[in-house]
């Protein structure tokens, strides 16, 4: 029992938790941006996978993880553009279209990764984002407890800069939604599209834009999973995380702050069970995913009273009904 608790104090546990949380948070933020604008992005799973594959391959070719991030952003935005056009102006059903994106993108990802990849880890490591450099504390004789605490704090901060940027992005997105005209317009797209039309803005354009930005973020989340993590490609570990991110966004009631809390919680759970498995000396990623999925489902069930889901997605028809009269 004490061993189970000591995991929290092991070296590198908290950085591992933050590193596990960041891709989930980024993808959840992407799903949230889409969702706020009234697009339920069920393509999240496929976008996360193809982002991971694109990030891995581009990093392998170019030798820098920045290229991987750029590739993931580009491919995510492209898929988001297609999905947005299909869902918004053409009005295809969101659930099945999103599922098609997931199946299609995951299928294409298998092609990109090559026929040889069959769910096992790709042994070849690519360069990853390095953790930020922080000087270690000098050894002092006195005040050992304080030093231990300070060390733990510094330890906590020793993660790649991309992880920090993700956390900053959550704040930026929260600010954008709550304090800017663009955010207001996007929220109105989800909650009252007629109001947006009345303002003379195009609901379709805003939704496509949100879909592009959100999908790019989800794909980047997939890339970060590889490029801040092990630097290897393994479908067995990646699969399912896109859905988890989507569940975070839904359970958070499409609010960035709550998504942050949920993602950190799931990151801790992920890192914890990874350590637990190390202790048990089994190296399977399945339990990780199972824990994440069950937690996401529980969060979803527990928070659904607070989610103004129907407010967002109950008003879909209003847009389709709006005729293009001159």
């Amino acid at each position: 029992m004490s061993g189970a608790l000591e995991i929290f104090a092991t070296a590198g546990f908290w950085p591992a938790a933050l590193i596990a949380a960041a891709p989930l948070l980024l993808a959840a933020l992407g799903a949230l941006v889409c969702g706020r604008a009234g697009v339920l992005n069920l393509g999240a799973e496929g976008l996360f996978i193809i982002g991971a594959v694109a990030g891995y391959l581009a990093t392998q070719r170019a030798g820098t993880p920045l290229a991987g991030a750029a590739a993931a952003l580009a491919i995510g935005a492209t898929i988001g553009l297609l999905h947005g056009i299909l869902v918004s102006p053409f009005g295809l059903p969101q659930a099945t279209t999103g599922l098609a994106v997931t199946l299609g993108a995951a299928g294409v990802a298998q092609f990109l990764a090559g026929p040889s990849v069959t769910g096992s880890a790709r042994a070849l490591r690519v360069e990853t984002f390095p953790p930020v450099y922080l000087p270690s504390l000098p050894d002092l004789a006195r005040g050992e407890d304080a030093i231990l605490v300070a060390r733990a704090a510094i330890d906590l901060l020793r993660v790649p800069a991309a992880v920090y940027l993700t956390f900053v992005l959550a704040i930026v997105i929260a600010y954008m939604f709550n304090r800017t005209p663009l955010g207001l317009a996007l929220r109105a797209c989800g909650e009252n599209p007629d109001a947006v039309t009345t303002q003379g803005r195009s609901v379709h354009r805003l939704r496509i834009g949100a879909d592009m930005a959100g999908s790019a973020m989800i794909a980047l989340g997939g890339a970060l999973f590889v490029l801040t993590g092990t630097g290897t490609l393994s479908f067995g570990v990646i699969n399912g995380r896109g859905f988890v991110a989507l569940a975070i966004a839904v359970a958070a009631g499409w609010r960035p702050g709550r998504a942050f809390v949920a993602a950190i919680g799931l990151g801790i759970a992920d890192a914890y069970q990874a350590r637990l498995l190390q202790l048990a000396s089994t190296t399977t990623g399945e339990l990780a995913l199972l824990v994440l999925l069950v937690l996401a489902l529980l969060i979803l069930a527990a928070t659904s009273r607070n989610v103004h889901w129907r407010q967002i997605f109950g008003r879909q028809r209003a847009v389709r009904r709006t005729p293009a009269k001159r």
Partner: protein
Amino acid sequence: MIRFEKRGAPLALEIAAPVLAGLAAAVLTPATLALLGYPARSAFAVMASGAFGSGAALSATFAMAAPLMLTGLASLLSFSVRLNNLGAEGQLLGGALAVILLGTVMARVPAPLVIIIATLAGPLVGALMLAGPVAMKARLGTDETVATLLLNMIALIGIAAATGTALAAIAPTGAQQTFALPAALPSSGLGMTARIAIGLMIACLVCIAAMAVTRYTVTGFVLRAIGGNPTAARFAGIPVDRIQLTVGAVSGALAGFAGAALALGFIGGAGGITAGLGYAGIAVALLAGRWPLAVIPAALFVAALITGTQALSRAAGAPLALADIAIALTLLAAPAAAALSRYSIRIVRAIPPAPSAPPAGSPTPNAT
């Protein structure tokens, strides 16, 4: 000037739309393969012979069609009462998982008893896996789409753990991912042809029964009322939540039964559970539209599309995930065609004159 005008689709067009959608998916799949840089020469011939060309190909297609009919009908039923249930995959795997676990636990119980219990347990698990999210939707307002998707993944992990296979969460659609069954399970000792025939017979009978219920009974009328307008149905005194729960349970039970029957090996060709049948079932439901009977040809088509695509990817040396892409294309093409069939294209000659300013005080026509 070309104008698109909305109108109800005539019956002929409503039938033609899914046919065209299926053709579009069949054409776009090899096109995607070529786009991804693989040889797609004489792709249609390869696909056709892979689906129908030989006895083995035909039996593979028909073997896949039976579970597809069940998952397709399951999805169609839940769509028909406005349940966004994307969980047929998980319910199928859940039903199969129940059989596998029961087979392992009841190794000493006489085989016929195991078969009976397992055949009942599979649908029960499937029903619970959809009734749960639907009840949560009614009581808590949980979104059932995301909940069912998460349950899909959970069921897949469960089955991977139970059978000791490597996990590939979105496994390629089709036969590739066949999970081994524990040896303790009583094999029903049926021949391949018998299994295929039994599967098709059961599935077709279920589809016909569903068609009869939805078309010719009061229950069917109630279902159509909910599908047409849930709010109006609620005001008319129909207990919408309860009926959605019942239909959800039936839908889940159908998918769960498919999984159990596959795991027990009395439907399906080679035996064993195949990944992706639930997602492909959604494509079947979209092609079938609002007719349960149309699930039969739609499932046959999707089964042929999958086996044909598998033959194509084998011939081109490409990953089997091509079948997933084919299903994705069908999922896009079917609603797109249905939406297009609801518009008529009219060519308008004259440019309409600019509207004269309405007299002050009069209500503006067509205020939007």
